[in-house]
């Protein structure tokens, strides 16, 4: 029974990681922005949901439905106002990478600082569906299960959009060969903005889901960004399916480490896997050699 408990815990965590990392792989793989402020927007969404739920009595599921377009618009603005000047300024992909790291590092501190000013450094959580549900004879918290299912629906939805639609094909083309995308009629700047905003929508959605079952604090975002970055590299940059699998893998490793070794060693476990990938398959577990 312990086994099923662990599997459910790992799937929830892994699903969320995958969702956050998918957002990042879109932003980095297509828009070429190495976004270090990714996790802060996730935690920000968690706090906004907390406020909606506790003071306005909104159902978190409505918050989720509302958060996706809101996150999309917010990140669209972030990209077009704050990051486009850098894209214009930088002559090469490497220069943009450096600039985007520095700029999003600044954004990280601004968002985190705002959250700290409003809510302080403490942990927050709210009551939502904290009733046990029987899964294969094992009680599992309903909110956790719901978050896991929502994460997978969102993740697979994004995968299908990328794999089956014209927009998806254009995004993949941008990820594969940004310098040639315009030759086949793709508007690179529009597509980059779209990918960045879509990534933003995913991470904001993930933030709402996290707030449903995990206590969160203003300074937690950085750790999520870190793990998302590791997943992106493990899955192969720009590879959405790779992200999903690498995210699940990380979820399992973390859950097992926390359960059998020490909850204080999860970061070490993440780094251990990262190191292995770097040494053995630097192009990512599911990436191709270029």
């Amino acid at each position, binding site marked *: 029974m312990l086994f099923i408990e662990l599997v459910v815990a790992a799937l929830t965590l892994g699903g969320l990681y995958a969702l956050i990392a998918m957002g990042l792989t879109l932003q980095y793989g297509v828009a070429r922005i190495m976004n270090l402020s990714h996790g802060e927007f996730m935690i920000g969404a968690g706090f906004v949901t907390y406020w909606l739920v506790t003071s306005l009595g909104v159902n978190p599921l409505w918050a989720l439905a509302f958060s996706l377009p809101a996150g999309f618009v917010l990140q669209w603005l972030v990209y077009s106002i704050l990051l486009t000047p850098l894209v214009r300024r930088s002559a090469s992909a490497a220069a943009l990478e450096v600039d985007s790291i520095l700029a999003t590092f600044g954004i990280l*501190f*601004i968002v985190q600082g705002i959250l700290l*000013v409003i809510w302080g450094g403490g942990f927050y959580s709210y009551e939502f569906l904290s009733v046990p549900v029987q899964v294969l004879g094992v009680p599992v918290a309903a909110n956790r299960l719901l978050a896991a299912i929502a994460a997978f629906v969102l993740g697979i939805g994004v995968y299908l959009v990328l794999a089956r639609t014209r927009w998806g094909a254009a995004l993949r083309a941008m990820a594969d060969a940004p310098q040639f995308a315009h030759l086949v009629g793709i508007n690179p700047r529009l597509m980059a903005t779209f990918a960045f905003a879509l990534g933003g929508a995913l991470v904001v959605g993930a933030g709402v889901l996290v707030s449903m079952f995990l206590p969160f604090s203003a300074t937690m975002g950085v750790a999520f960004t870190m793990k998302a*970055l*590791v997943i992106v590299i493990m899955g192969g940059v720009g590879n959405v399916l790779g992200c999903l699998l690498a995210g699940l893998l990380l979820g399992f490793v973390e859950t097992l480490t926390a359960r059998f070794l020490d909850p204080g*060693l999860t970061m070490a476990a993440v780094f251990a896997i*990262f190191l292995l990938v770097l040494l053995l398959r*630097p192009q990512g577990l599911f990436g191709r050699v270029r």
Partner: protein
Amino acid sequence: MIRTFLRSPVTWGVLLVLVLLASVPLWVSSQYVVAYGINVLQYGVLATAWALFSGPTRYISLATTAFFGMGAYTVAVLSETLPWGALLLVAGVLGAVLALIVGLSTLRLSGVHFVIFTFGLAELVRQLVTWYEVNITRVIGRYIFLDISNVDIYWQLLALLALVLFTGAVIQRTRLGLVLRVIGEDELVAQHLGMNTTRAKVALFVLSATFMTLVGAIISPRWTYIDPAIVFNPTVSFQVLIMALLGGAGHLLGPLTGVIPLTALFELLAARFPNHFAVLLGVTFLVIVYLLPNGVFERVHQWWRRLRVSRMGMQTGSPQTYAGVAEGREAADVSDAVDDNEARP
């Protein structure tokens, strides 16, 4: 090589300033001045050491805190068993080993892998140290009782600053410095020229990290109480990064020009707006990234060059007289454009 170094007025100027700074505690008895001096020197060494590696190679390291904290914590653990010199040696070696591991596993690859690894390194080391203390030694938080005064710390940091600057100046004049600059311009070209890029990057990263570790070790007696959360404070990496960028990481003395105004600014912000510190820090950062991408030092250098070129234009008579009145300005712009091309391939 040595002759040009010794002949340069900059060398003597820097040396003079260092000697003057060293004499400060002798004629100023204010504890506050020494404390502020320590603060400036701490960030001065950290930022210069950061730029030693990240400046020429353009690999952004976010791991300053990891090394700094490692140095401080090593001293805290061993302060009762070893003499001061040995403490510094052990701390330096540990920092170098950590940097070697990080460098060997990430610097063979592209810059992104390195950035990501260093981004989480401080947190990783903090977790490992905490885990070790909780499970093996069963103490969390340590006291440092060492008979080292603030003035001693001040002098040691100043000596370290002199050493970093000297090392940097030497490296710039050797083959290693050339290799690093080519890596920064275009790594592929460096490889095609037959340069061993990985070895150069790892060597410099280890060197820079060792200096950072030593800063942590030297400054640790200032805190009497240390725990992992204090010494592995991620804000330090961030502050060092901003300072080096504001000054300009492209020149050896650049970071110092950023350290002096920003330590004052941060001290002011932390005292006046403690709650809004993070936001203001972030805003400062964005302003620097958008408005001064190459740093103050580079900007001043540009003005200086423009001034000189326009003066030369006046003295020698213009080489393109028919171009009109603004020929001095135009010549300056052309030289700027060439410089920009050099700076950003």
